Every structure is written in C-alpha cells, then in structure tokens.
C-alpha cells in the first residue's frame, strides 16, 4: 500500500466557491492508501508548496495527489515541490478540480461529489505511479528559420548575433517577403525598401547566417534539440557561385511571364530576379515559361552569360541538416476578392487590391512609380477605398479583423494625394481601427490634411460606366444612398494564412486555428511558442500583424530559440511509450500512427519448442517519443504502455470513478 | 449449509510481515479463533485478497507451531502481488488445508536430505520444523539450500543459526555466483549436491525449488544412486479449487491439489509429464 497525501487547493473562490473543501478533504482521507489530507487557499503559493513539502517529510508520504487547476498550469510547480522533499516528481498526480469541475458547475451539491470522484481517481492512479527519470538530450547548436521575410530576417539576425548558426529557408528566389513589395510604411512613411534592404544584406553577409533561397522544407523529423530536416533546394538552373548578377541574361531573355512580385500587374522574363534589390542577386529560370524548357530551343541566356553560369542540367538538391530549434515565419497571403462578385474584382483593370495598389506607387513597379490607371495610363482623380473585404465577415469571409488595412489605406490615400494632388479619396469603412503608436494621429492627418473622405458604410455594387467605375453604397450614419463615379477602386482584401500553411504545419508538427494561422502555445503567456517544443512562430503566419509587431515577435522568437540553443542539455520526455515485446504481435500499426517516427520494427528471438523463432516486434525510441499516446491506443493487444499513463493506471482511474461506493 | 461449501474462505488476519528478499515476504496469518485449521507439512492453503482473487500457497510454518500459519510468498502474480501490498492487521480470506503433505511415515527412521532452492524452501521449512520437533523419529538431517544471490536466501538467520545448531544436523548453503559479501559456497544447488556426494543408503531426499533446479537435482540424485522411491518432490500448478474439481492441475487422473503436491519420483514417473 502506498502512503498517499492529498492536498486540495481553494484557488481563492475559484474552487472553494463551488466545491465543499472540507467535505472533499474528509472524503479523501478514506481513499485507499491515503494517510494524510490537507487543504490550502492557494496551494501554488510558496506557503502552499511548503505545506506539501513538509507533509511529505513528516508523514513519510510516497505519493502525492493535488486537487488544483489544470496540470498544464501548475503540474511543474507541484512536481518541483515534491522533488524538494526528496520524492520523484512523477509520483505526484494532479486532479483537475478547477477546469474539470468547479468552473463548469454551479451547484456545490453536484460539484463536490465530482471533485471527490476526480480525486479518488487520481489517488488510484497515483498508487500505481512509478518513479520516472527524464532523459537528458543533446542540443544541436543551430537554428532553422522558415521564411525569409522581415520576421525571418529579424529572427535570424538576432540568433546569429547571439553566436549561433542559422539557416533561412525561403521558397522564393530572394529573401525580403511582403515588406519588399511595399512602397512606404505607416505611420512614418519611411521607404520600405530603404529600411529593409540593409537588413537583407546584413543577413546575407552575416557569417552565422546561411541563406537557402528558392528552397522548401520537405521533411522535419526528430524533436526539440535535434530536428532532422530535409530541405529541397530547387534547381535555379544558374550556378550561384559563377553568377555575378550582371543581368545580361534577363535582358536578353526573349520570353515573359507575369511577375509574382508585381502581383501579376506586369511581366518579368523567364530568367529573372524578382526585384532589383533581390538577395541573392542570382536569377532563376522559370521552367514553365522558358522556351528552352518548353520547346528545347533558345538557350540565349546560356550563350550570353559571361561567366557561363547557366546550367540547364541542374537538379533539385536535398540538404539534410540537424537543428536545435525552428522558427516558422512564413507570412501571409492576401484574400482573392473575386469571391465578392459585386465588387467586380478581376473584371476591370482599375479595381485593385491594396497590395496591388502598393505596387503602383513603387518606382520599380508596373507603372514605374507613376500613379496612373492601368486601363488608360491616366492619373486617377477619384479613388474609392473599400475596407474589410473578407475581414470581419462572418457569412462569407473571415471573422477576424485584418488589422493592417485601416492604416495602409490611410497611407495610400496620403501617398495618392502627394502623387496626384488633385485626386480625391473616399474610404468606405465599418470602423477605423488605429491602435498603435502614432497611428491615430496618422489616420487623422489623412482625413484632415489630405482630403480623404471617410464614409461609414458599405458598398453594394461596383460597375463600369463610360470611362469610370460607379460605386454604389450606403452611408450608414445618414442612411443615404451614395454613388461615386470613381476612376479607381482599391479593395482592402483580408490578410489570410498562406495557402500551404496547413501542409507546412503538418510537416513541421505544429497546429493551426480554424483559419490556418499557426497556434501559439498560450495566447498570453506563450505567444511565440508552439505546442511542439523547440518550434517557435513569428510574424503574420500566426495572425495579421503590422511590421513593428512582426519584428518584435521575431525577436521574441529568436530569444526563445537562443535560450534553447544555449542549454548544454535538454530534459527529455519522461512519459514515453514502451512496448511489451513478449505480447507484441508485430502488426506495426503503431509505427504507422506515430507522428514522431519514434517506432521502428526490430527482430527478436524467442524460444519455440526446442529451438529459436525469430519474429518482428515494435520498438520505441525514447528519445524521439513525445509521449502522445497514439500508439498505446492503437495497440489492440495493449502491448504498449505509456509510462505515467499505463493501461493499468488508466483502468485504475476508471474503476475508481465507476466503482465508487 | 454454506459452511460446507469447500470454496468458502474463512476470515483471517495478517499478524505481521517480514521482508525476506526483494521479492519474497513472509506473512504470519491467524484465523478468527487461533489456528484456522490443522495441517501436515507440505500442505497448502488458498489465500484470498478481494477483489484480486485467490491463489494457493504452501504453508511454510511447522504444524508444531500452534500460534499461526506462515506463508513465504514470492511476488509473481496478481494475488501474490496484492498480498505483498498489505499491511499487518489486514484481514484476508483463507481456506484449506489442501494436498497430501509429505509422507512422514515413510521418512521415519531414515536420514533426511533436504534440497531447496530459492522460494522452494517454503514447503520444506514446514517439514524441517516438524522433523526438529520430532527429532528422535529421524536420523541425520542434511539441509542443502541455495539461491541466486545471498539476498535471495530466505530465513537466513534461522537456517544458519537455529538449524545448524540442531543436533545431528548439517546445513549447506550456496549461491549461484560470487558476491562480495559472501564467503560461503558458490555454485548451483544440483552441483553442490553432487559434490557433497550423499549416500543413498537409508536416506530420503526431498527437493523443492524452481523447475530447472529440480530437474538437475533429480539427475544428480540419480547419479548418486538414489532410487526413485527415495526421492520426493513437490509440484506447482495453477489451481482454483484445491479439491480436485476445477480441472486445472491434473496429471492424468491424478490431481496435484488433492493427490499431490508431494510425489515421490517413482509416482511421478508413472504419470504424464505434464508439469
């Protein structure tokens, strides 16, 4: 029989308000094996922990049950308290009588017996708890940053500055990301490229940073401290060592394709760098439009290239490398507004999204920086901005606010006024949201100094008429119908997760919310951590963000990664699965189901009749196992036990609840 | 008339528990009014720990001890594991005695050789105690007892001190391998028996221990020219009823729980070797 102590926390009134603590303590005294029971107002406080530590020593306890909040909150606190008293921390068991009981019940008459049942189950399980040791694991002193936008660049620079190697994997030919596409940034109106490109160059030149552009992550295996990653470096068909970035190839290239960087508003060559300040300044050949790859002839670039850097035979290359930590910073996409037929996007060249309009301002953009209509090359005199296209739209779009649109619309309206002084801007909005340092002032400036008409209301229809676009809407403040004959319409399309986010999340092993934005481990206290140890998130892949927020989060993620890399050893998972090989039939369903590839087949020998029989059974690599328990529930013969959650422990809990007197 | 239900246990209480080895404990058990029942050395009893169940154990105390029954129990299964988890004062169920016991009449006047290994000393100890209590009825007594390691020897001080001090008695202890704190004999029990070269004349050999040890002890005794009638052993089988009905422990038409567990080698040779 164990000697179990039960400690029940009031959690102020969080628990005590709904659970009769005295009754619960009294009932606990009668559980099998319980020799001591006590309660305290805040068990997680230092005083509370002392009560546990003392009681363990005084009563010679060898098992501890705490009736408190969720183990996710304080299991570690109490385990440490137990360890301080010389008890193996895994001999402590948490009964969650707050989230699982007091918080979900109102009636004390009902909640009290339930709390007792939960405690009884925890005591029954604790009786079977075994002392466990967490393995100590090595840390590979190198980080991987997925995504080479401002978030990825900032995170990489911070990690590199701390003295650790970093690889940046960027799927496009150049780093820079969305920020590189922007003209100016709010609320200071700095030139985006002017503040970004120095960072890009710094990253490229940093001795600790290794840029892997035009590359994608193919596979992530392993675990915190030892992620084994396969990176596919796509064939550029240009030898980056020989290439000088002279530009002759793309000048001479005869074929064209829509430019991704310019949002398809202009064309680029089939051999190209995405933009003028690209890093690295090494072009790639786009196989889909290249004449040589399509038709087998041309080869002009090869002929023209002075250092003979063109290599049509180049193949995708797989780089396999181990990392201690991973920062995911894959950014965002803009919603395609064609789903809103009433706005006519895609049917008229002067109906643009915010990001497309951004390119119109840019000196290297499709119009060479002249703010003109794409339909006729004339400057727009009346521009209508429509907010919340797909954002805050429960019925057809996203529930959330895209956060940046109010501000960039104000910015674009200001820029428009600067470039086309006689232009007039109209903004249809639901609310104007300007949380952020200097944001409110900036927006005011737009409205008050730059002649921007803000109209609270919705647009019902946009259609071309003669040489302009008729925008019909309702001013919801005055309830009047409004009709504006505009030259240009800019749709603030919602910021959405990258299309490939679900796939990447699965690959890396992190989960996402219902919009496919990656989930942080805790919305307040662990904003850059994920539920997978060693993987951090930064930037707009987590939620819509502006640049200052993105950069701060990137640095935060970097700090977390640095903290991890700076450790000599990591404490591994103690609650890992183990196979009872004599019972294992070797069906290996567990191998198929394991998300951490921690299970492998192994051949064992068994005595059979007078000889030996070889057979295959499953084996768990405890270093890879994260204790998720998928294998244990898949195993039909119950031949896999999860340490700390073994089949008999779980059954003891069930029995303790079901067979209660 | 449920008292006549042979499967019905009576209430008993654990007096105390001694930890013999890391996995063997000796429980002293007393019935409601003293001894639960009378028995002979070699007999067994069913102990129950609800809700885990019942299992059969040989009685290790001598019938001459009238205060309680003793059971030396190795933690190998559910019931034995549950018994290991109990505290003194705990009530359990008991029924018995079961089995035939050692053939004391046949042993009278003879020299007796006990050969035990590990937990196998449990049933022999009952008989050894009986022999000491009726010392004049038996000749010289030799006790060979061994275990894997010194820590696995049960009743160490009793074996070494009390038994060795009995008149006309020799005690031989051995362990399987060298151990730092062990300066006694090292070697397997069967080999030790061969080394000691006991003479078969006028002697009865009784052996109990792990199956593999028994197998080689029997070979050793055979080499020493012991005839099958002179060699006695006890068998272990899974049992549920103890009264020859539940169908588990039969060797042919013989039930180990009822007609055994003690068999002489010649009796055993006549039975199917299904044990």
């Amino acid at each position, binding site marked *: 029989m164990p000697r179990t102590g039960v400690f029940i926390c009031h959690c102020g009134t969080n628990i005590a308000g709904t659970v009769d603590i005295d009754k619960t303590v009294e009932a606990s005294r009668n559980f099998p094996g319980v020799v001591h029971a006590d309660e305290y107002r805040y068990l997680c406080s230092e005083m509370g922990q002392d009560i546990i530590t003392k009681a363990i020593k005084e009563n010679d306890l060898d098992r501890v049950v705490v009736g408190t909040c969720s183990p996710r909150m304080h299991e570690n606190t109490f385990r440490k308290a137990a360890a301080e008293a010389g008890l193996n921390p895994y001999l402590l068991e948490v009964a969650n009588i707050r989230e699982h009981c007091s918080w979900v019940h109102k009636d004390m008459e009902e909640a009290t017996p339930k709390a007792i049942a939960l405690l009884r189950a925890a005591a029954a399980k604790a009786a079977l708890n075994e002392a466990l040791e967490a393995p100590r694991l090595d840390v590979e002193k190198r980080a991987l940053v997925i995504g080479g936008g401002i978030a990825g660049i900032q995170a990489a620079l911070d990690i590199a500055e701390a003295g650790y190697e970093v690889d940046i994997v960027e799927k496009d030919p150049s780093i820079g990301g969305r920020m590189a596409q922007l003209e100016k940034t709010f609320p200071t109106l700095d030139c985006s490229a002017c503040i970004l490109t120095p960072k890009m160059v710094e990253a490229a030149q940093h001795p600790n940073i290794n840029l892997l552009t035009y590359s994608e992550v193919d596979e992530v295996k392993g675990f915190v401290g030892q992620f084994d990653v396969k990176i596919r470096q796509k064939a550029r068909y240009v030898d980056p060592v020989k290439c000088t970035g002279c530009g002759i190839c793309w000048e001479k290239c005869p074929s064209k394709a829509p430019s991704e960087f310019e949002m398809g508003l202009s064309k680029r060559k089939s051999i190209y760098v995405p933009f003028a300040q690209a890093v690295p300044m090494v072009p790639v050949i786009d196989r889909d439009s290249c004449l040589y790859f399509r038709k087998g002839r041309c080869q002009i670039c090869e002929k023209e290239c002075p250092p003979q850097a063109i290599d049509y035979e180049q193949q995708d290359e797989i780089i396999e490398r181990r990392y201690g930590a991973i920062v995911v910073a894959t950014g965002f996409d803009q919603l395609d507004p064609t789903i809103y037929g009433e706005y006519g996007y895609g049917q008229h060249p002067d109906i643009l999204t915010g990001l497309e309009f951004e390119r119109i301002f840019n000196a290297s953009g499709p119009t060479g920086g002249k703010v003109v209509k794409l339909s006729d090359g004339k400057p727009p005199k009346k521009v209508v901005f429509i907010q919340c296209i797909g954002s805050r739209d429960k019925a057809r779009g996203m529930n959330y606010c895209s956060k940046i649109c109010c501000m960039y619309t104000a910015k674009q309206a200001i820029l428009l006024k600067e470039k086309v002084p006689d232009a007039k801007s109209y903004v249809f909005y639901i609310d104007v949201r300007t949380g952020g340092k200097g944001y409110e002032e900036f927006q005011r400036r737009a409205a008050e100094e730059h002649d921007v008409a803000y109209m609270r209301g919705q647009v019902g229809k946009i259609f071309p008429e003669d040489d302009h676009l008729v925008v019909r809407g309702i001013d919801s403040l005055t309830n009047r119908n409004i009709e504006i004959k505009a030259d240009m319409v800019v749709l603030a399309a919602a910021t959405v997760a990258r299309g490939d986010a679900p796939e990447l999340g699965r690959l890396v092993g992190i989960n996402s919310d219902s919009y496919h934005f990656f989930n942080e481990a805790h919305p307040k206290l662990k904003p850059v951590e994920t539920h997978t140890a060693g993987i951090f998130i930064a930037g707009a892949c987590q939620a819509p963000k502006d640049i200052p927020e993105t950069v701060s989060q990137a640095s935060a993620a970097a700090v977390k990664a640095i903290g991890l890399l700076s450790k000599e050893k990591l404490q591994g998972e103690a609650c890992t699965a183990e196979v009872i090989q004599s*019972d294992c039939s070797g069906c290996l369903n567990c191998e*198929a189901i394991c998300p951490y590839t921690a299970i492998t087949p192994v051949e064992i020998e068994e005595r059979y009749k007078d000889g030996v029989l070889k057979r295959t059974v499953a084996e768990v690599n405890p270093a890879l196992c994260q204790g998720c328990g998928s294998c244990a529930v898949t195993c039909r013969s*119950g*031949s896999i036990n999860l340490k700390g959650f073994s089949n*008999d422990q779980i059954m003891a809990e069930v029995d303790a609840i079901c067979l209660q007197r | 008339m449920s008292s006549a239900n042979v499967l019905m246990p009576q209430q008993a209480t654990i007096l105390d528990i001694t930890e013999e080895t890391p996995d063997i404990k000796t429980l002293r058990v007393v019935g409601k009014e003293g001894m639960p029942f009378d028995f002979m050395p070699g007999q067994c009893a069913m102990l129950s720990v609800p809700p885990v169940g019942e299992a059969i154990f040989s009685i290790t105390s001598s019938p001459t001890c009238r205060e309680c029954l003793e059971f030396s129990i190795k933690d190998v299964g*559910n019931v034995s594991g549950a018994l290991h988890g109990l505290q003194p004062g705990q009530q359990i169920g008991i029924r018995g005695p079961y089995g035939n016991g050692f053939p004391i009449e046949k042993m009278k006047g003879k020299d007796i050789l006990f050969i035990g290994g590990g937990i196998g000393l449990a049933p022999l100890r009952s008989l050894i105690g009986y022999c000491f209590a009726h010392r004049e009825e038996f000749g010289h007594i030799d006790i060979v007892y061994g275990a894997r390691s010194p820590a696995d020897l049960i009743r160490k001080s009793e074996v070494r001190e009390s038994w060795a001090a009995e008149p006309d008695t020799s005690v031989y202890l051995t362990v399987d391998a060298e151990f730092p704190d062990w300066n006694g004999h090292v070697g397997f029990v069967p080999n030790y028996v061969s080394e000691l070269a006991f003479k078969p004349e006028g002697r009865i050999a009784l052996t109990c221990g792990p199956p593999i040890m028994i197998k080689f002890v029997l070979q050793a005794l055979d080499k020493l020219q012991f005839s099958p009638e002179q060699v006695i052993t006890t068998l272990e089988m899974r049992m549920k009823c103890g009264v020859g009905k539940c169908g588990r422990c039969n060797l042919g038409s013989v039930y180990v729980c009822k007609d055994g567990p003690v068999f002489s080698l010649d009796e055993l040779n006549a039975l199917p070797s299904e044990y």
Partner: protein
Amino acid sequence: MAERNVESVNKVREAVSQDLLGGRIDLLLGWEKGHYWWQSRPLFARSEADLEKLAWDSFCAVNLSRYLLEELKDHDKVGVLVKGCDARAFNRLLQDNMVRREQVILYGLPCPGMLDYNRLVEKAGGAPLEITEENGRVIIKVGSGEQEAQRDDLLLDKCKDCRYPDPAVYDQLLFSPQGEKEVTERFKTVEELEEMSAEERFGYWEKELSRCLRCYACRQACPFCSCRECFVEQENPRWQGRAYQPSENFMFHLVRAYHGTGRCIDCGECERSCPVDIPLQELNRKLIKDINELYGDYEAGLDPEQEPPLLTYRPDDPAAFSEK
C-alpha cells in the same frame, strides 16, 4: 454434383500435388471430408496419401489462412487453398505482418458460396441424405423423396452477401473467376438497427449477447484477431471479467468489433462459428458501413497495399481538430 465434384477435386489435387511432392511447399492446407458429407474440415497434407483425402465441395467453409499463424512456425513454405474470403483473410494477415508473402503459395479457388446444413434440413423438412447440384439448383434427397431448391437459397449467411467470391490474391487461379457480385442486402440489417432508438438497440444487443458463452470461437476463427495475447485474457489490467453479465458481454463483443474497424474482411467466420448464433456480423458490418461513410469505400483485405483508413491521415478526414 458428384461427377463435377470429382473432376474439380482432381484439378485441385493435380495443381497442388506437383508442388507438394516436388518439395516446392512443405505443407498444403486444404480440406478433407469430416464425419458427415456436409462437413469439410481442414486437411494438413504432407504426403500423396494425405492428398487422396483432399476435398473441394460446397461445404469447405472453414477459412484455412488463419492456420498459417501456427504452421509457418514449423514450415518454411506452405501452400493454401483460398476462396475469396480466405484470400482476403490472407491479405489481412499480410497487412498485420503476421505472414510473409514469400513463405506462402496461394491456390485460388473462385467460390460459388458454401451451403448451410441447417438450411438443407429446413428446405428438405428433415435430415437430408444426399444432395446433387446442377446449374444453380440443388436436389436434396430425403427419406421420403426429393426436394429441389435454388442454390442461392441454401447458402451460409456468410456467403449470401459475398461481394468478392474470387480470391483477391493468389499464385495460381485454379478455376475461372466468378466475377464481382452485386450485393444489395449487405447493410440491410444494419440499417434496420440504425433506425431503432438507442434504448431499443441496447435492448436488442443485450438480449442477443446474453446467449454468449464466452467460448471465443468468434475470436479464434477470425482473421483479424491475431494478437498474441487477447485483451480478454490479460491480467494487468483486467479488461474483461468472466461474469456473464451484460456489461461483460458488451465489453467483449464491442471491443472485439472495434478492433476490427477497417480491418474486418466481412468473411463471417465469427458468426458461423458461434454455437448460439449471435448475429456478430451485424456489429462488424455496422463498423464497415461507418468506415465507408466516413472515409470513403474501403474493402479490407482486398488490396494489402491500400492503407487502412484508420492508419492514414488525410487533411479532409472528417472531424479534424482544426476544422471550424
């Protein structure tokens, strides 16, 4: 049937004897006649004399693939006669890593469905003495004369809704295939059960399962039950008690059925083996139906390369955690 039967047995014998006597296989798993003409039991053939006993008739219901679990421990290479369901059973074992393909030679027997003795008795109105089969009809001889019936009406329950009478896997196909059969009533009973209220359904199963003797014939005959130690027998924890109580009956049958989710090949051996005729196949078919509805049509045992639905993750799987 007699002559046709002799002819087909000869064909089977011819096919296997070369391999067995030539040493290509060490053992042939086939059928021989049992005590009665309406019983064919497993034959473990090692010699020419053994092959003389070989039977292939309308009563070879016993699934032979399951014997591979034991026989492959003692033999390097075993030949097995497989009907449609037996071949799917073999694939099941293959998928569970219980057998190695190269250790087995499969002789495929397209199967017309096996006959049910009880149906013969029912149809004949008494103990039948003999039957003759011709063109899908069966003539049953009884003491008082003859009775004729459609063969399809005399099939074992397990054969009635058999969709794949031809072996899905074989090394040698001994007769021409029957072709995939259209089945219409496979899920009829399941649908009827689904129509019931939860209470009615519980009552139905409580009653049906109350007959269970816990003889475990269903489990022992089953090609998806290949655990070395069944949960039923495990001591720690003791999942399954022996009491004949509804809770224990449900525990055994439901857990067993769940263990077959996405794995049951619908061979019906469990139900055929049950001495008290518990409609076990309804439990299995309910799960087959659910799997089909949730994860798309899946026929266990048909293609060992196809990943079982419950061992595969696809982003469009229902009830994914990330869905709204």
